[in-house]
């Protein structure tokens, strides 16, 4: 009698949460990357929601189709969304090369991981160059943190008949929010590229081959996709809405 009771107590439970194993079945670093990204999602959403609140309460706003209508270096006017469309395409494309690197990592194919990682890095650098062009273009028009274009240029970004004081107020808000939010996102892209380079070097010198798993590629992949995810929202709320 007593022995059976003891056996029941001593029986090792094997459910996910009864200890001795990872209930989420992910490695610690990967889970922590997820929680970091969660906190980063909150940061970006506070930025975007305060942008939304300011814009919603403003009587007028610079029309995106008028502010972003140039393809720097090629077309000066009349091409709304074309340049940002290219930027979006580049970032989605580099996200795809990142998943392909992760997929190659699962097959322990070092050579393929390296090539897809290099593709991802090139995509990130292309995106950063595009953003630098975009910023330079807006800066040449007179936008910067705390700076707005002269009244004549500013007139072009609004529908007819809006008083200058209102134009000046919302242009200031637009400039500050645009450079802060795209700058914060661009900084994420920049750090993502740096991390990708570090990981690629590690792949090249065989660190993960020795370790037997390309899990680190997966972790930076999560970060990189997050950057893409944020861009999807920035794109919608700055360029489309």
């Amino acid at each position, binding site marked *: 009698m007593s022995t059976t009771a003891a056996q029941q107590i001593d029986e090792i439970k094997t459910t996910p949460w009864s200890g001795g194993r990872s209930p*989420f*079945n992910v490695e610690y670093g990967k889970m922590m990357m*997820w929680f970091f990204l969660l906190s980063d999602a909150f940061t970006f959403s506070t930025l975007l929601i305060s942008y939304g609140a300011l814009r*919603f309460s403003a009587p007028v706003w610079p029309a995106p189709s008028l502010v972003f209508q140039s393809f720097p270096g090629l077309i000066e006017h009349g091409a709304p969304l074309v340049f940002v*469309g290219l930027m979006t*395409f580049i970032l989605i494309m580099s996200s795809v090369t990142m998943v392909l690197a992760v997929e190659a990592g699962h097959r322990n194919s070092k050579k393929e991981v390296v090539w897809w990682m290099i593709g991802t890095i090139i995509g990130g650098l292309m995106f950063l160059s595009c953003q630098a062009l975009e910023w330079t273009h807006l800066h040449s028009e007179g936008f910067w943190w705390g700076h707005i274009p002269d009244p004549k240029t500013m007139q072009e970004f609004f529908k007819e008949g809006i008083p200058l004081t209102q134009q000046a107020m919302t242009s200031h808000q637009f400039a500050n929010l645009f450079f802060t939010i795209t700058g914060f996102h661009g900084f994420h892209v920049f750090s993502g590229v740096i991390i990708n380079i570090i990981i690629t070097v590690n792949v090249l010198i065989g660190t993960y081959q020795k*370790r037997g798993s390309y899990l680190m590629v997966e972790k930076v992949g999560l970060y990189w996709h997050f950057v*893409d*995810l944020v861009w999807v929202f920035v794109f919608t709320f700055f360029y489309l*809405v």
Partner: protein
Amino acid sequence: MSAETTEVHGHEGEHEEHEGMTKRRIWNVFFILLGITCVEFIIALWLAPTLHWPSHFVNPAYIILTLFKAYFIVAFFMHLKFEKVGLALAIIVPILFIIGLILVLTNESHYWIGLR
């Protein structure tokens, strides 16, 4: 660390966890994302200006399409669909707090309109 890593993966998850993304699926998701973006462009450049769709109709459409894109990126590219349900919930449920912030600040910005 390397020992732990291989152990966690070797336990049971190896094929179960990695079966998620094949090359074909990756490209499928890519074309879905590209397609949704193209739809957004078509709305912004042709449909809205020519058919004079009002912004209170177009903007929700953009937001819904954006949320679709977000779903595909998180579920497939970030692999969350193939993780344990517990992990997915631990990431997604806190995101719901953002809805609260949106409601609060929308309400607040209504009040700001009155102040201006």
